[in-house]
């Protein structure tokens, strides 16, 4: 079973994720004679408190994306009233800890929510949409975590 491990840091379990345009968008860009933006390495927190994965707005801008969906969401600051947020289609790839290893997780088309995470010192959240197919061990005493997909 593909797996990886990492450190539990001040921000939580951190994971490097490759965020790119979705497969269908990549095909549309090619058909339009436009270059496909290079995927971006994003430092994201594995967050079991997030229903969905979310990516910092600056990365979505870097990829030249536009919204392809909308969703209602609650956060601590929405105070019980759902807030409408845009969703963007991306590809999301997570590699194992060993350099040159195959991806442990790869989605060619995943809807993510935009957010402002840079001020929090991270680039986004890996939410339960991705974790739905994963098993995770949280090694608090050792500041370690492991995930298998």
């Amino acid at each position, binding site marked *: 079973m593909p797996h990886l491990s990492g450190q539990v840091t001040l921000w939580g379990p951190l994971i490097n994720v490759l965020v790119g345009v979705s497969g269908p968008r990549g095909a549309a860009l090619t058909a339009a004679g436009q270059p496909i933006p290079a995927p971006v390495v994003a430092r994201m927190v594995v967050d079991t408190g997030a229903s969905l994965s979310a990516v910092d707005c600056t990365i979505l801008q870097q990829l030249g994306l536009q919204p392809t969906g909308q969703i209602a969401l609650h956060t601590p600051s929405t105070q019980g009233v759902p807030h409408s947020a845009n969703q963007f289609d991306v590809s999301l790839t997570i590699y194992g800890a060993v350099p040159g290893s195959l991806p442990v997780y790869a989605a060619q088309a995943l809807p993510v929510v935009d957010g402002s995470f840079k001020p*929090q010192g991270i680039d986004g959240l890996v939410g339960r949409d991705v974790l739905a197919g994963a098993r995770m061990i949280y090694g608090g005493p050792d500041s370690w975590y492991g995930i298998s997909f």
Partner: protein
Amino acid sequence: MGAEARMPDPSEQEANLKKYQELLPSLSGSEGKYALIYKAELIGTFDSYADALAAGYKAAGLNPFLVQRIAAAEFVAYFTRDIGSAVCHT
């Protein structure tokens, strides 16, 4: 078919969303599928997000379209962490 990109117009996506909300009662038989709306018209419903997205880019090229999961009761996502309220102008 629109392969050429142009500057996104937010009102187009608003019109797509409005159309989806208008159509929602008639889509109750397709709950769990994904609706594709382009130019404020229903293009079709699809079993998976990836299929709807692929059809969207095929129909609209790089122009705005909307993919929504069909649900009688609106799906609400929860985040225990603040995700920032800035609107992402891409």
